């Protein structure tokens, strides 16, 4: 298919662009296969807007006489308006945008066409391999092994080719366990707590069904992670009734009789369409400037978004607490083990592991616990808050995770190497990107699409020093402690950087942030200068002494 077929009017002049809190600008609009490009005609200060078609969530068109107006709502929640003279042009452009922003084939997406303008210093596709992770692990314990049982993606299609499992369990047993867990997602190591040797495992639900099926290998696998005589905790991200209902459909949960050393805790973490609705409601509330105080607060409440944040943080704290405080191993799962499970395991690691609070460590966490662990990004991030199609598989699961990280970041502003911009960047790229990193739903699909060969990795770009400096937190001081956030409602806040980003003038806040950074930078300069002067003085003194001698 040629993109040209979809573009009936590639260019329109005298288009007026309205962005919130900016003066309207007149200029030329161009459509290409992957971008909507608007450039103002002013020679002196040419403004250009490049918008990826894949970033467009929905468009609306209106006509007043022959003047058409297109309102474009983006997946990053921005809303822009284009006034296009000429009804035909406007209709053509609207239909082209509609078609180009909803291409159904992945291989037509921009990452397959994008040619980077920068030199690749490090190929991001091989920056974070599980083998490296395992090497680190082997230096502190020999209780685990790397298994290639899923080499052909035959045991579990949503798992990566290699996984880390207890040494005492062989591949044959793993195959059996896979049959006992939904989607073949048998328990694998998610995190090893060096401090006390406790482990966090993740999986999908066991297929016990109504007749209480059991799997000895499964029991043996999870028990292999326990110290003798110690208990473990199963954190089930569904409430008990839901878990019980799941048995009717062949699913279920670990029953006490078969798992006597394990204590089950049910936490309720919302999924799928409930989250999506919550997201849509919140964005609606934030976008309406006319709400009076009561209406705003009740809309904020009705969205339930902050409740989801609190629930998720609570569950993650609980998992972290079981490991760090109770000295117990933990198994986390919900139903499929691809959404709420990953939220909990990754957030718990943010709390427990200082490494995950560095830029590189966080990237590794996203790769390991989200991309390789098989979170279906392509499905979940197909549409954002403005989509009309309410597909069951769209949900802001990853955004919710990022927001929880942001909430912890706010409470521990000096403990993270990255800044808010870094989290925002990940949010944007998860929904629309020139990089192939977030395409596909799991490693299996990515391998089939040959993404590493055909597209550029986000990490190849982010980890270049030029880019990295934008994402560094100047307040960072490495902190090896476990960081326990407060989950009281008074301690949680709306993530303004995402939800109010386009709804209020932010000039003063940005300037203040700049000033903060300047103070820190200036401090470092001064310290260096003082040290240099002291050294100089000291040298002079010794010189003199030497001379006197």
């Amino acid at each position, binding site marked *: 298919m040629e993109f040209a077929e979809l573009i009936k009017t590639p260019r329109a002049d005298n288009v007026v662009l309205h962005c919130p809190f900016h003066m309207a600008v007149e200029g030329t609009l161009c459509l290409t296969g992957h971008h909507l490009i608007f450039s103002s005609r002013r020679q002196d200060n040419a403004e250009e807007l490049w918008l990826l078609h894949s970033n467009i969530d929905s468009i609306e068109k209106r006509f007043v006489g022959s003047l058409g107006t297109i309102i474009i709502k983006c997946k990053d929640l921005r809303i822009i308006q284009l006034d296009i003279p000429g009804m035909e042009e406007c209709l053509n452009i609207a239909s082209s945008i509609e078609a180009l922003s909803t291409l159904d084939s992945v291989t037509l997406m921009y990452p397959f066409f994008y040619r980077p303008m920068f030199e690749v210093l490090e190929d991001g596709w091989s920056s974070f391999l599980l083998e490296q992770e395992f090497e680190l692990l082997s230096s502190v314990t020999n209780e685990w092994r790397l298994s290639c049982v899923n080499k052909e993606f035959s045991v579990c299609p949503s798992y990566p080719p290699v996984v880390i499992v207890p040494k005492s369990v062989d591949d044959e047993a793993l195959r059996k366990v896979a049959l006992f867990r939904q989607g073949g997602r048998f328990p694998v190591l998610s995190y090893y707590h060096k401090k006390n040797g406790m482990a966090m495992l993740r999986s999908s639900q066991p297929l016990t069904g109504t007749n209480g099926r059991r799997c000895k290998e499964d029991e043996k696998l999870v028990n292999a992670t326990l110290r003798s005589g110690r208990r473990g905790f199963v954190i089930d991200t569904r409430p008990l009734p839901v878990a019980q209902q799941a048995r009717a459909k062949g699913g279920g949960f670990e029953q006490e009789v078969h798992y006597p050393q394990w204590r089950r805790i049910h936490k309720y973490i919302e999924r799928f369409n409930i989250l999506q609705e919550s997201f849509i409601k919140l964005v609606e509330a934030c976008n309406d400037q006319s709400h009076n105080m009561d209406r705003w607060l009740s809309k904020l409440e009705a969205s339930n978004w902050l409740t989801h944040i609190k629930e998720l943080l609570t569950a993650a704290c609980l998992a972290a607490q079981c490991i760090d405080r109770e000295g117990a191993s933990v198994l986390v799962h919900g139903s499929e083990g691809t959404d709420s499970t990953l939220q909990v395991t990754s957030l718990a690691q943010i709390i427990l592991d200082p490494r995950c609070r560095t830029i590189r460590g966080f990237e590794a966490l996203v790769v390991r616990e989200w991309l390789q662990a098989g979170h279906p990004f392509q499905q979940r991030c197909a549409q954002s808050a403005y989509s009309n199609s309410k597909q069951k598989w769209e949900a802001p699961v990853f955004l919710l995770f990022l927001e929880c990280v942001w909430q912890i970041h706010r409470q*521990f502003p000096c403990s993270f190497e990255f800044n808010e911009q870094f989290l925002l960047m990940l949010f944007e790229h998860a929904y629309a990107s020139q990089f192939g990193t977030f395409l596909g739903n799991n490693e299996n699909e990515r391998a089939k699409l040959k993404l590493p060969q055909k597209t550029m990795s986000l990490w190849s770009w982010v980890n270049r020093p030029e880019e990295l400096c934008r994402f560094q937190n100047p307040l960072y001081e490495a902190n090896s402690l476990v960081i326990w956030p407060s989950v009281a*409602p*008074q301690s949680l806040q709306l993530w303004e950087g995402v939800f109010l980003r386009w709804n209020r003038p932010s000039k003063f806040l940005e300037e203040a942030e700049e000033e*903060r950074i300047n103070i820190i930078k200036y401090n470092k300069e*001064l310290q260096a200068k003082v040290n240099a002067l002291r050294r100089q003085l000291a040298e002079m003194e010794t010189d003199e002494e030497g001379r006197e001698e």
Partner: protein
Amino acid sequence: QVEQVKLLDRFSTSNKSLTGTLYLTATHLLFIDSSQRETWILHHHIAAVEKLPLTTSGCPLVIQCKNFRIVHFVVPRERDCHDIYNSLLQLSRTAKYEELYAFSYNPKQNESEQVKGWQLIDLAEEYKRMGVPNDYWQLSDANRDYKVCETYPRELYVPRTASKPIIVGSSKFRSKGRFPVLSYYHKNKEAAICRCSQPLSGFSARCLEDEHMLQAISKANPSNRYMYVMDTRPKLNAMANRAAGKGYENEDNYSNIRFQFVGIENIHVMRSSLQKLLEVSGTRGLSVNDFLSGLENSGWLRHIKAVLDAAIFLAKAIAVESASVLVHCSDGWDRTSQVCSLGALLLDSYYRTIKGFMVLIEKDWISFGHKFSDRCCQLDGDPKEISPVFTQFLESVWNLTEQFPQAFEYNEAFLLQIHEHVHSCQFGNFLGNCQKEREDLKLKEKTYSLWPFLLSEQKKYQNPLYNPDFSPELTLLEPNTVSFNFKFWRNMYHQFDRSMHPRQSMFNLIMNTSEQNKQLEEDIKELEAKIKLRSGQSDVVLVKDQEQTARPAPVSLKSPPCFQKEQPPMPGNDAVRTIEGSNTADNRYSELVSEFSKAEPAVVSLEYGVARMTC
């Protein structure tokens, strides 16, 4: 003195507690825990004491403070508890001004320091700064002996054309005699903010002098003929007042006025709103939705927004239309003070400096007779007179500092400290209800002024991000009042609930770094001077031993002990000993100073196999 008393964590569901000894002093309640940490509570800060039903561990005693601290003690013996309860009830209720802490507080200053302290804020100077007296405005001596209005200050500025009979006539037509006077003069726009109380218009009464008075105000503004009259009450309330012979200005009787209601609720609504807010925020194990709906039902943020919206209306009338504005409510000492002072704060960057903010409070709140004594319940009085009007003012300012982080010289700690002392009765400034009462009490001789104390430790109150050139002089600050901009002020209402605060405070870090930068700049100067001196000396040496210089200078590889890499002092918790509100020297804000995360989780507890999260 009672031993073995337990101090419970307000929000913890597990019965974690500190055990220690409780002491009662003449002015404070003191709790010293087993690790010798001290908690001081000023008796004047106590808003309510409650004895709860006896439990197995003892008799619980809950003390609520006006600075929103709530402490929960468990006293082992009921008898002791009862004694403490009775003593606190007596000690926290003072019948006479002379028994307040300010009269016994002695900061070891001599008399001249005391006098100088009171002279720090000079309102005559302030009016001069604004540009009055001038061709249009003059100082009136009508109230020199408090004869026209007891609750006004002696010195009042009025239009030159307003003669004494007009003033007296107008004052008779205004509730409590509070006739229209100048509150703020904008010298660039030649427009004025004036304030007064409601007219005694009833359904049809008129007063020619009052009409003249308003005309005089609008004529005192050469750049605009019409003036605004802002009634800060909801229209319904104002109309209801007519039945009592009070009311609002009839536009037909006053020439060239534009009348406007702005709908700020009265002190009773505000009191119960705060009450509801505190009930919600004090709930244990609060869910997000209960918090948000509680916040909504309390109406608190709506009221804050209403106050700020009114101030913006006022400031815009002056800055955009160059129109003078007369502001009143019922008596003109609550809502009027809020709106006039916030309006001036938006218009004039001087009030966004530390000194300027003190002046603003002295002018629009203290001198114009905001009834601090009644509103803050300094003496045992009518509970219906209590209202958080001043707290709302501080909260509105805080909201502005959040939107304009670089516009204010002072920081949040400054606002909190002022709030602390409005209730502490430790300094004379806020005692009593009006200037006349303060003079009668001889406060300037018998007590000390708060302002010099705050100034002496102003380092703590400086906003490190402050940019004096943020906005040119006398340009309007235009805040965005879309609802989502207003936030719950956690550091005010949960100031003492540490578990809710960020564990690392960005603010403190920036504060300290900025402070350190100043020190480093000094160090650099000093070092450079030393080096200069030395190189001067060594020049002399060089001249002497010229033949030696050909030799390469010996390189010292071993670093001398005098240069070590300096570690930036991290914001640590240096407040081991904290005395709340007992004197300004206490860095109360240091309670909020970040601690690196404690090893113990304040968050989760596993009880009976059931995981429960607590805040």
